[in-house]
């Protein structure tokens, strides 16, 4: 028999040293070959989505998955599992009841997931087209080559696929518009800009399964009648750029792309364009300007890119995850895809579940699952079992959702109706130690820096909102600030040119709507209830709870905590810079916060 050792070599696991682990497996397996009755291969895969517990090592076909593997564990895994056929218990994941689980599907993080876009990641070597083929790759393209343009578009229409880049626009409709244009040259583009500052879904797909994106884009090219396409990937995503570039070469060498696609006589050529790292370049008209070698500023629409886009030619832009679904839709049929999800939102969606949850990572779930299921079952609840406060979805254009909305299904339309949005998939969980005013300030600061400045309402509106929010966080808030924020926000929704400006106020408006009391506490109570805004927070040790463990004193960067072992500690308010490190370090909840010093 043969066994495969799958070593996760996504960004997170690489950061934790997985390359050296893969190297050691290879070297030791070669060395020990003589004693093994089985033949073993090592495979380096993309991100398994559970980076927090990386590096991950999977053994197939035994279906054993190890977490937090160290270099020093490699030999034991070879001896016990590869040669001995038994699991190494201490490297298994412990479920919520503390029981070790062997298989991936038994892990509570993975169990409820249903993978379509991420179907291959973690099982294939992204640099080997043979792996992709063995997993049913390029079957969708093969089928599409036998279909007419209208048949392809009809299949995608049946699937109900809507764009995963944030807006949820029906994919088939965009294609239909471009298909109807009578033009010599047309382009298809992949949006791999992923500008949301807290998300990494697209990166994981580009790195871990580049061929599925190429196949999706090739299907798009056939549908609209384009021979050329580009993949716009931000330059910081070095591994993604490298893997996609290599995959294009490989696909051409195997005839899946190039001058004669799978012997059909059709021509499809792709190139990679590296993005310059500006959030606004994720907006499709700005992306196109950037591809043309210009400053990436949005243009007014109409004309829509599907009519007049890159270099004046009809152009469709699709998000990475949208494209990753297409091979499956063509291969297995649109109807099957549409059997998952809700009435208006079909299929699955990938989320980057991060923040103050116990289990963080990339998850793919059917549309319509509730936020509660996502956060409490998959995410395991809030770190340290602290109270949940809010979940921020949709990145800088999205909003904060409070506890009483946790039972809402996650899909395109439900969250939108509540002033938030599902967005491209960032999902940031916050607890009682996250300040909602500060979160709003954070997003506005990000957007103020990223606004291209072309239109005044966006530039000036963001600048003003940032000034007000900074004042509130730093203890200079005034009566009337909340109302002023609201009116600026509403003005921007109407007056801005592109969606960056139109949606920029969402984080502010939703936090005001659902957490107004927190704004008021800052302004009239002179305190930050979460204990985050340093000007409005003072820290003290509650003597009756303090066990004198000295953890807080060790954590304090400025030596403000003093006390003897096993005796209550004390914070010197003159030295304290209100960083909160002691509160994070204390395991007895003995560090409390109050409002501004002297209030």
């Amino acid at each position, binding site marked *: 028999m043969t066994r495969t050792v799958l070593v996760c070599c996504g960004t997170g696991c690489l950061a934790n040293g997985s390359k050296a682990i893969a190297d050691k497996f290879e070297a030791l397996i070669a060395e020990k070959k003589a004693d093994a009755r089985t033949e073993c291969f090592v495979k380096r895969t993309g991100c398994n989505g559970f980076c927090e517990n990386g590096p991950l090592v999977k053994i197939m076909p035994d279906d054993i998955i190890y977490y937090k593997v160290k270099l020093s564990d490699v030999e034991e895994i070879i001896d016990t599992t590869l040669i001995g056929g038994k699991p190494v218990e201490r490297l298994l994941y412990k479920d919520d009841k503390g029981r070790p689980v062997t298989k991936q599907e038994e892990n509570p993080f993975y169990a409820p997931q249903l993978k379509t876009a991420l179907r291959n990641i973690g099982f294939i070597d992204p640099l080997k087209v043979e792996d992709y083929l063995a997993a049913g790759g390029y079957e969708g393209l093969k089928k599409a080559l036998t279909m007419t343009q209208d048949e392809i578009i009809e299949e995608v229409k049946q699937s109900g696929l809507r764009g995963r880049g944030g807006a949820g626009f029906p994919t088939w409709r965009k294609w239909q518009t471009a298909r109807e244009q009578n033009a010599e040259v047309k382009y298809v583009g992949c949006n791999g800009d992923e500008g949301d500052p*807290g998300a990494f879904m697209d990166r994981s797909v580009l790195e871990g399964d580049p061929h599925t994106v190429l196949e999706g884009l090739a299907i798009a090219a056939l549908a609209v009648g384009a021979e050329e396409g580009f993949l716009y990937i931000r330059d910081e995503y070095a591994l993604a750029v490298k893997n996609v570039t290599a995959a294009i070469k490989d696909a051409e060498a195997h005839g899946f792309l190039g001058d004669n696609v799978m012997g059909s006589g059709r021509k499809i050529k792709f190139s990679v364009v590296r993005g310059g790292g500006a959030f606004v370049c994720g907006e499709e008209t700005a992306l196109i300007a950037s591809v043309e070698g210009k400053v990436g500023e949005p243009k007014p629409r109409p004309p829509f890119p599907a009519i007049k886009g890159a270099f004046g030619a009809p152009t469709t832009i699709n998000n990475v995850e949208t494209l990753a679904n297409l091979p499956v839709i063509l291969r297995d049929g649109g109807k099957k895809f549409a059997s998952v999800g809700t009435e208006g939102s079909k299929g699955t969606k990938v989320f980057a579940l991060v923040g103050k949850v116990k289990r963080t990572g990339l998850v793919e779930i059917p549309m319509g699952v509730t936020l509660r299921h996502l956060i409490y079952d998959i995410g395991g609840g809030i770190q340290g079992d602290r109270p949940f406060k809010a979940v921020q979805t949709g990145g800088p254009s999205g909003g904060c959702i409070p506890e009483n909305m946790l039972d809402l299904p996650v899909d395109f339309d439900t969250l939108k109706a509540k002033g938030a949005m599902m967005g491209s998939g960032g999902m940031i969980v916050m607890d009682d130690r996250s300040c909602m005013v500060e979160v709003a300030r954070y997003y506005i600061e990000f957007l103020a820096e990223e606004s291209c400045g072309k239109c005044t309402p966006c530039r000036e509106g963001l600048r003003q909102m940032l000034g007000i929010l900074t004042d509130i966080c730093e203890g200079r808030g005034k009566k009337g600030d909340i109302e002023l924020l609201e009116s600026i926000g509403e003005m921007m929704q109407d007056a801005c040119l592109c969606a960056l400006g139109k949606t920029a106020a969402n984080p502010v408006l939703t936090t005001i709507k659902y957490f107004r009391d927190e704004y008021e506490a800052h302004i009239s109570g002179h305190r930050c209830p979460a204990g985050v805004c340093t000007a409005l927070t003072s820290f003290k040790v509650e003597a009756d709870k303090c066990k004198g463990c000295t953890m807080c004193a060790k954590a304090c960067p400025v030596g403000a905590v003093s006390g003897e072992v096993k005796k209550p500690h004390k914070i010197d308010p003159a030295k304290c810079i209100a960083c909160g490190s002691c509160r994070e370090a204390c395991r007895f909840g003995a560090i409390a916060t109050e409002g501004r010093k002297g209030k």
Partner: protein
Amino acid sequence: MADKILKEIIDRYPRERRYALAVMQDMQRHYSYIPREGLELLAGHVGCKVAELYSMATFYKALSLKPRGKHIIKLCNGTACHIRGSVNLINGINRELGIAPGETTEDGEFTLELVNCLGSCALAPVMVVDETYYGKMTLEKLPSILGEYRKEAK
């Protein structure tokens, strides 16, 4: 000398405006900033004004027109890292090195850059020095990590 390398980078691409960004990114990677001569040579190569390239270089955040330090500290201030305390680390680095985001230490050893999501949110807050990742960063760990790079400098 510098001219030769710059020429070599520029010549990797056809003489078309659409490749200007790629050339600048390559220069950035090689020098960790874009030298003035680079902009001038590139303008000649693709046939546009230096000013146009200049506005691109200031628009795209990943490009820098100022020389940077020997060690680049990238501190993630993406959302996940932010709510897990990256601001404290910004202040901590400021206390240790006396630099704010975007600045370089006087001795030219360190530059601090704030970046958005590094794709390792599960390890938040994340700091990267040169190519090495430091996950679950705390103020407590900061002095010894920076100390390693300082020692190296001596």
